[in-house]
């Protein structure tokens, strides 16, 4: 077993990217994720990798597009306003079926907003963020350990399905230090015969492209892409279920909100209320099945979010509105306290 080290979540992402075989990182400074860039600026030159501070978020995501076209693992990271700028690139990556890992350490918005933690980019992430019909796999870590593990998982998923994978964290997850056991380095195993590495005169030229001017052809490309998305929805949902099996009140929360909610669920159980927590680890694909199952027993759902209520819509869809779902939230960089979540649980239990 590897030694446990105390790492900031942001640093855990950076080191895990290296362990995943990523040797190219492009970024632009923005709080609260700059440790990722700082860490890789130090590390990459020492291992023959490339760290480049791009002139803009837009340039950074297009450099990512270039490296992904060459068939290599590549990452960029930013925080909410920067991710909006990357929206164009995210759409092109999807349209060209390129694998990449994009990290969003969220802060409060809209606009310039604040720099404190938030989860208000849930819609942007789970619905794509750019134009056109597409999806990204969205992973929501809730500990420094998961910041590392899901980074590696994200690279694998991206390669396997030729999609962009987004790690959706928040300022707390990025800044918090926790023990991390770093996994062993992995060798990327997925072949990329589509990559533009030069024909060497041995094959017809490869083209990385999202343009298709014939409607019939573009329709087919969309159909094919959504078949892959359907496979992802079947195979890849991930979640953690905590005391949810017999729960009357099911709290649904991800990331830092799930950490806070766990305390509240424990406190509720201590006071005799059967509360449980379902923590989506993949936000897309959303883990509908455990929620639908829980709805057969539970009488009430609570969506705990650092937003004005975004994931709550997916919770309602997953249980087909068969049970009431209430929102327990703080926004603008504020985080709900365990006491606030406990009060929501109590009030749901009184109904």
């Amino acid at each position, binding site marked *: 077993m590897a030694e446990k080290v105390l790492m900031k979540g942001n640093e855990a992402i950076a080191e895990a990217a290296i362990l995943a075989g990523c040797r190219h990182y492009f970024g632009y400074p923005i709080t609260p994720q700059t440790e990722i860039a700082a860490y890789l600026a130090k590390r990459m030159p020492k291992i023959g990798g490339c760290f480049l501070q791009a002139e803009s978020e*837009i340039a950074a995501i297009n450099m990512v597009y270039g490296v992904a076209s*060459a068939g290599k693992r590549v990452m960029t990271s930013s925080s909410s306003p920067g991710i909006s700028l990357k929206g164009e690139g995210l759409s092109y990556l999807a349209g060209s079926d390129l694998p990449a890992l994009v990290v969003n350490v969220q802060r409060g918005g809209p606009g310039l907003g604040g720099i404190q933690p938030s989860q208000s980019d849930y819609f942007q992430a789970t619905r794509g963020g750019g134009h056109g019909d597409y999806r990204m796999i969205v992973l929501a870590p809730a500990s420094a350990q998961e910041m590392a593990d899901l980074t590696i998982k994200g690279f694998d998923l991206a390669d396997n399905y030729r999609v962009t994978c987004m790690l959706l964290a928040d300022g707390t997850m990025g800044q918090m230090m926790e023990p991390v056991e770093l996994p062993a380095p992995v060798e990327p195993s997925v072949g990329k015969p589509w990559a533009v590495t030069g024909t060497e005169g041995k094959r017809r*030229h490869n083209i990385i492209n999202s343009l298709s001017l014939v409607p019939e052809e573009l329709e087919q490309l969309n159909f094919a892409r959504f078949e892959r998305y359907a496979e992802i929805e079947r195979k890849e949902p991930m979640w953690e279920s905590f005391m949810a099996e017999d729960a009357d009140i099911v709290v649904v929360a991800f990331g830092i909100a799930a950490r806070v909610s766990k305390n509240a669920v424990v406190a509720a159980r201590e006071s005799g209320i059967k509360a449980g927590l379902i923590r989506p680890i993949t936000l897309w694909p959303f883990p509908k099945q455990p929620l639908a199952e829980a709805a057969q027993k539970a009488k009430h759902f609570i969506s705990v979010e650092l937003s004005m209520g975004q994931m709550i819509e997916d919770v309602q869809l997953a249980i087909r509105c068969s049970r009431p779902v209430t929102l327990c939230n703080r926004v603008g960089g504020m985080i709900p306290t365990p006491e606030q979540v406990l009060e929501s649980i109590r009030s749901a239990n009184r109904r």
Partner: protein
Amino acid sequence: MTVFEKPKSLTDAPFHYCPGCTHGIIHRLVAEAIDGLGIEGVTVGVAPVGCAVMAYNYFACDMVEAAHGRAPAVATGLKRAMPDRIVFTYQGDGDLASIGMAETVHSATRNENITVIFVNNAIYGMTGGQMAPTSLPGQVTQTSPYGRDVKTVGYPIRVCEMLSQLDGPAYIERVAVNNVKNVRNAGKAIRKAFENQINGRGFSLVEVVSSCPTNWGMTPQNALRWVEENMIPYYPLGVFKDRTAEEVK
């Protein structure tokens, strides 16, 4: 005896370009340079958004289609991932000098070891003839129907002059393709821009002053005359920066 044939680095796909358009000539010059240097199998091209958007169908090497203006950033990624490959971008004036100006300037100042072919025909062709960052003062376009009024929309940008002020770039030259002599010079410049990359010299940009008979509303011959009489006086031909004679550090 064969006296004229298609370069190996062009595919058999017929060009979609308008009659009299000079993109065909410039494509051919790029392909001849790649053939001449024997680098087709190790070259990756980046196509722009604009008239040359489908250049990926015409060049026989591996190709990437970039978002509008982002070709130098995409090329940066490609070159950083594969330093042993030859990477070029092929971009128009709207792509390179308007929406993609930041990417252009910063890849130049980083002296990114790539080759940029910049086709300046002073108009947005693909979208039907709107004012470009390089449209001449007084030039009538769809979005400057009374002629480009420099008092309200500002002046054209001379890309070579501007980039040559930077310490970074290795080689900046402006050429034209309006007559045989200029076409020959253009071919030499483009070849040199690729050679520079092979020799690790860094950012090399060749601006090709070009014509757009369709959107200028002229016959091809008159368009070439307009290049001579209006474009070249505003965009003088020549080498604006050449650090390739310096020692490589």
